[in-house]
């Protein structure tokens, strides 16, 4: 994957990869091959992932939330290993132990997705502190949803980042909903960046419809963070489908949903490309190529093995360290008396 992000074409391709990957995740579930049903698709939020990630650099680190597939893809993840992890397979990024909500890859700076709303936020304070001390020039970015704006830990983390002038950025992907709760049912202060400003961060809200706008805002915020001015960016978008794979969003108004889905960053970018003269055939080719890549990831996942049972006691502690004793081993000893 080229990481040339200047042109809209590249941004579009990245968004499309996410869109199609997520569709395939849905398919994996339907085929009964996912590990569980806690699959949170980021369809509708592609511009947040791609726009922000396009302003990140090699060496930067980040944490994500439960709806983080797209962000990780935008940072260069391998779809095969992602899909395998989502299926709970040995070949996945975490050997099948983590799954959709706990994907991570140190090589790409992904310090981990998190199933705790807000749980991954303060780690970027520490990572940014480390980057600053080590003089790496890297920043650390926390991605989370609008629901996490109501978790206290966010304010502790933003306050520390501001206090210590850290290269840290907090990105809220405001898809308007947290499960069945609309943002205005969760807070009176829906102008989210105002809160971050009150803590001393450089803060903006950007409309996620046009990925170039997101890229622009992200570049402003991330560049400032790189020189020690921590930031916050809210990206307005819409959660196209249910909260998790099984949810049909019965609590949402149909017109609202229809309107929301019109705010499609992928379609918007596609239209802009077409308008600027990009040939339909070229776009169709791109789509076909991505579809093939993502189809292959499903095959890869399905064709991979479950982790072996011996893996169960590994990784609780570092290799070579005393491991927890399996219950069976204890029982063997206790029951060995004649």
């Amino acid at each position: 994957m080229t990481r040339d992000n200047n042109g809209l074409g590249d941004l579009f391709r990245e968004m499309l990869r996410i869109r199609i990957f997520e569709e395939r995740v849905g398919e994996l579930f339907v085929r009964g091959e996912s590990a569980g049903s806690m699959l949170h698709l980021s369809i509708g939020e592609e511009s947040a992932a791609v726009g922000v990630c396009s302003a990140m650099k090699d060496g930067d680190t980040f944490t994500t939330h439960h709806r983080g597939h797209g962000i990780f893809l935008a940072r260069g993840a391998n779809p095969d290993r992602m899909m395998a992890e989502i299926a709970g397979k040995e070949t996945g990024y975490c050997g099948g132990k983590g799954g959709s909500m706990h994907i991570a890859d140190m090589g790409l700076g992904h310090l981990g997705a998190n199933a705790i709303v807000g749980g991954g936020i303060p780690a970027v304070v520490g990572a940014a502190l480390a980057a600053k001390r080590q003089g790496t020039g890297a920043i650390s970015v926390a991605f989370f949803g609008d629901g996490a704006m109501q978790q206290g830990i966010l304010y502790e983390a933003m306050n520390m980042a501001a206090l210590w002038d850290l290269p840290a950025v907090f990105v809220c992907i405001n898809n308007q909903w947290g499960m069945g709760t609309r943002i205005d049912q969760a807070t009176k202060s829906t102008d989210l960046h105002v809160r971050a400003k009150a803590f001393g961060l450089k803060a903006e809200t950007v409309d996620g419809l046009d990925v170039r706008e997101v890229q622009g805002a992200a570049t402003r915020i991330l560049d400032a963070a790189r020189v020690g001015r921590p930031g916050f960016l809210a990206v307005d978008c819409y959660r196209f489908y249910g909260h998790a794979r099984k949810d049909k969003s019965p609590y949402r108004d149909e017109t609202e949903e229809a309107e929301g889905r019109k705010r499609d960053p992928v379609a918007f970018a596609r239209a802009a490309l077409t308008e600027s003269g990009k040939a339909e055939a070229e776009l169709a080719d791109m789509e076909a190529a991505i579809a093939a890549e993502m189809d292959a990831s499903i095959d890869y996942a399905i064709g991979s093995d479950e982790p072996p049972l011996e893996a169960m006691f590994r990784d609780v502690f570092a290799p070579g360290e005393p491991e927890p004793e399996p219950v069976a081993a204890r029982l063997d000893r206790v029951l060995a008396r004649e």
Partner: protein
Amino acid sequence: MESLTYREALGRALADAMREDESVFVLGEEVGRYGGAYGVTKGLIEEFGPERLLDTPISEAGIVGAAVGAAMAGMRPVAELMYIDFIGMTMDQLGNQAAKIRYMFGGQIGVPMVLRTQGGTGRSAGAQHSQSLEAYVMHTPGLRLAIPATVADAYHLLRAALTQPDPVVFIEHKALYAMKAEVDLAAPVPDWGQAALRREGGDLVIVSYSRQVHYALEAAEALAGEGIEAAVVDLRTLNPLDFETIRPLVEAAGRAMVVSEGPMTAGVAAELAARISEECFDYLEDPVVRVAGEDIPISVSTALETASVPTPELIAATARRLCR
């Protein structure tokens, strides 16, 4: 007799309590319009309205703290923690505030709140959505702890919890919500704090709670075919702990096994094993055996998840070796 699921029985208990007592209300994430992440409060908002089915922001510590204040001010809040895995954010409000207020303030006031939550494996939900953390609660002085295994108890224990003068943590099991049973909600029930003997048997006493009661019963069935008769005790509440039901059974059988889905080390199984070992020492022919969750995080991989906690097969196999 009615045919209800565990989920429905819980919802019914909340509804009946709200009908009888104006001060009862439910608060938590998605408890109202959504009807609860596991559907327990589905439909209740229609009858009771959004004030008594109060949807909250995602602020676990704040939710528990608000429940504490409401309870002190004369309400009977039922706060819902969507997953017990999120208890880590609430432990200060739960353990330092709710649990200690009556004591610190010299008995002036109690905190009659219920914290409903659910735990356990079974949905490939991964390390942060599959835990059995009841031991944290049991270890905290000042908290009551109810943990229903049956549909009838889903109803009755929750009703009873809603009459307690002190904070009750009420832990459901995510794998039991769809369990259905014929129940007579008006039938006499064991008192709050009293264990239920779910099966008699003179060779071995299996002490358990929550989903593992069913696994123990399944194991006991299998064992019966082999001539081993295991009694199965369902503790129902871990605080109070009904040791008086356990004692005579263990004294008669001379053998006991404790079964818990929570991690073994320093968990509920440890407490139960220590207690039986010390109190029934002279009657024990064999060591009290602990069958419990592994001391590891839970994987999303279904294979590893299943192997991380006790199964009916492990219970039966252990019983066989013990009684051989």
